[in-house]
């Protein structure tokens, strides 16, 4: 779609600009061409208006020869050739116009005068065409930069949405439903415990809510979240669930993406204790390697019952987030040994957010 031809405001401005050029052409025809003022103006007005539209066609040539992709020579060659052709057409039209006007006594232009004016018209035609080319390039550039800005803004929104979706997906709503059901049961069986559960759940939710804006949190906070989660699940599963958390001195100050362990711990429950009639355990430990932070999550799983899809979405999600944030500096490993399922995370140890 032509940016000027199909935009009324732009077209008006464009033709207004050309009306100034029309005055210039009339002046040149009158002085250098040896025509009278009236003759010059009568010839200039229709010719210039016509040429204004011819020059609009250079937009297509500009679009096909983007400045960033073509060499200077080829751009110049294409547009100068265009200018010569357009201007030549213009001269032919001018001759036709003179022939048409020759019927009117007042406006008769002698063949001699016209030949003299032709060289001048041709030069102006080339210059005007090239001016239009320059204007089209300006328009193309501004359009391109506007689109680039729009794209960047859209990409940012998409990235933000993806991150939020990821965070939301990490706290499984069924965990809430099950917890509420447990509270409902406890209100008569053990009111004290029901109250404790409400407080645990409240703490857990408040912690997760605050995490949306943060890109990194100390491991201590992440551990606190996991601990809160496991204590709630412990109320639900009772003696079937046991868990243990260990962290070496100082390691809890290291920074990690928020909720990076949460989906893994949820997996450890769903595929571990909740699939084992006699119950299971979850072990979380963190230690500091030479440069890296090493976090290991282990859970017992049911070796005998096959066919249950294991650790799909949650694990992929964690892997993706680590990859996006740290690239090859972080890793995730999954292995099983007997009835123990183990996920090991390695990420760069950093205590300050700007270190990343």
């Amino acid at each position, binding site marked *: 779609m032509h940016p000027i031809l199909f935009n009324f405001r732009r077209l008006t401005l464009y033709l207004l600009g050309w009306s100034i050029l029309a005055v210039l052409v009339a002046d040149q025809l009158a002085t250098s061409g040896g025509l009278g003022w009236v003759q010059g103006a009568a010839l200039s007005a229709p010719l210039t208006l016509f040429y204004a539209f011819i020059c609009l066609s250079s937009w297509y040539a500009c679009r096909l020869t983007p400045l960033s992709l073509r060499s200077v020579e080829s751009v110049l060659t294409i547009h100068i050739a265009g200018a010569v052709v357009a201007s030549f057409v213009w001269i032919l039209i001018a001759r036709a116009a003179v022939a048409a006007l020759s019927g009117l006594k007042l406006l008769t232009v002698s063949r001699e005068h016209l030949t003299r004016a032709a060289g001048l018209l041709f030069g102006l035609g080339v210059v005007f065409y090239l001016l239009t080319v320059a204007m089209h390039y300006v328009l193309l550039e501004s359009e391109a930069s506007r689109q680039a800005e729009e794209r960047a803004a859209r990409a940012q929104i998409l990235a933000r949405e993806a991150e939020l979706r990821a965070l939301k997906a990490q706290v499984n709503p*069924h965990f809430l*439903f*099950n917890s*509420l*059901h*447990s*509270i*409902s*049961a*406890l209100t*008569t*069986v053990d009111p004290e415990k029901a109250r404790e559960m409400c407080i645990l759940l409240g703490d857990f939710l408040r912690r997760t809510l605050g995490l949306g804006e943060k890109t990194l949190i100390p491991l201590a906070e992440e551990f606190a979240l996991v601990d809160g989660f496991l204590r709630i699940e412990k*109320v*639900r*599963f*009772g003696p079937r669930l046991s868990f243990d958390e260990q962290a070496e001195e100082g390691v809890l100050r290291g920074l990690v993406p928020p909720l990076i362990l949460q989906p893994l711990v949820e997996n450890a429950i769903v595929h571990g204790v*909740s*699939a*084992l*009639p006699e119950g299971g355990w979850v072990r979380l430990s963190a230690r500091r390697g030479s440069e890296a932070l090493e976090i290991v999550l282990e859970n017992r799983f*049911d070796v*005998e*019952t*096959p*066919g*249950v*899809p294991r650790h799909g979405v949650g694990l992929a999600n964690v892997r993706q987030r680590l990859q996006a944030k740290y690239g090859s500096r972080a890793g995730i490993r999954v292995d099983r040994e007997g009835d123990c399922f183990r996920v090991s995370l390695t990420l760069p140890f950093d205590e300050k957010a700007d270190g990343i």
Partner: protein
Amino acid sequence: MAEISAKYRAVIVDDEELARRLLRELLGGHPEVEVVAECANGFEAVKSIGELKPDLLFLDVQMPKLDGFEVLELTGPVPAVIFVTAYDQFALRAFEAHAVDYLLKPFGVDRLKTALERARERLGEKLPPPADLATAARPPAQFLERIVVKDGTRVHIIPVRKLDYAEAQDDYVALCVEGKKLLKQQTIASLESALDPGRFVRVHRSYIVNLDRLGKIEPYGKDTHVVVLTTGAQLPVSRSGYARLREILEG
């Protein structure tokens, strides 16, 4: 006398103790329902349902060992089943398995009352038991990953990749797994429709073969063939079975 006969015998199946206690407590307000057993996993449930033949079953979906649908598949139809779960995504499957209701945790007295009213209607209707529960309860657009078989009091969970072939035997199918044959009450057609057609082929009116076990195909008589499995077993192939095999193998 009428009041005693109106009693419904119920079994509660849920792996969470608190959930079982809550349900039992809420059922305390309904003296017409008598809880005859509580089960903490699928194996216990299959056993209790087989022995006690309850009228009413409260059934959790996600449980250790066997899920709720597999329990129903093994026990055969129970007159009134109410699913109890925190997950809403099983609702469609539940109703396809002819559940009378689907309770979403957490629920309260009122919702339970509605479910019991529905159960009472169902029990009053004395409908014939639903025909083939196994296929009805299969999740849509998803093929079987494991097959559950009851063998006396034992329950086998067989990953389908371990199945060599299946053979029709009247109302049963014989599943050949690691040299052993296990009988399951299911038609071969319903088993066929539950298995991934890219991995299992009905080579004959009476046989389904695991493509991973395919050794060779040899002509046998005028229009028929036999397949020789990697286990050594030989099975007849019908003309249409041969066409299906070729279609899949040639791709």
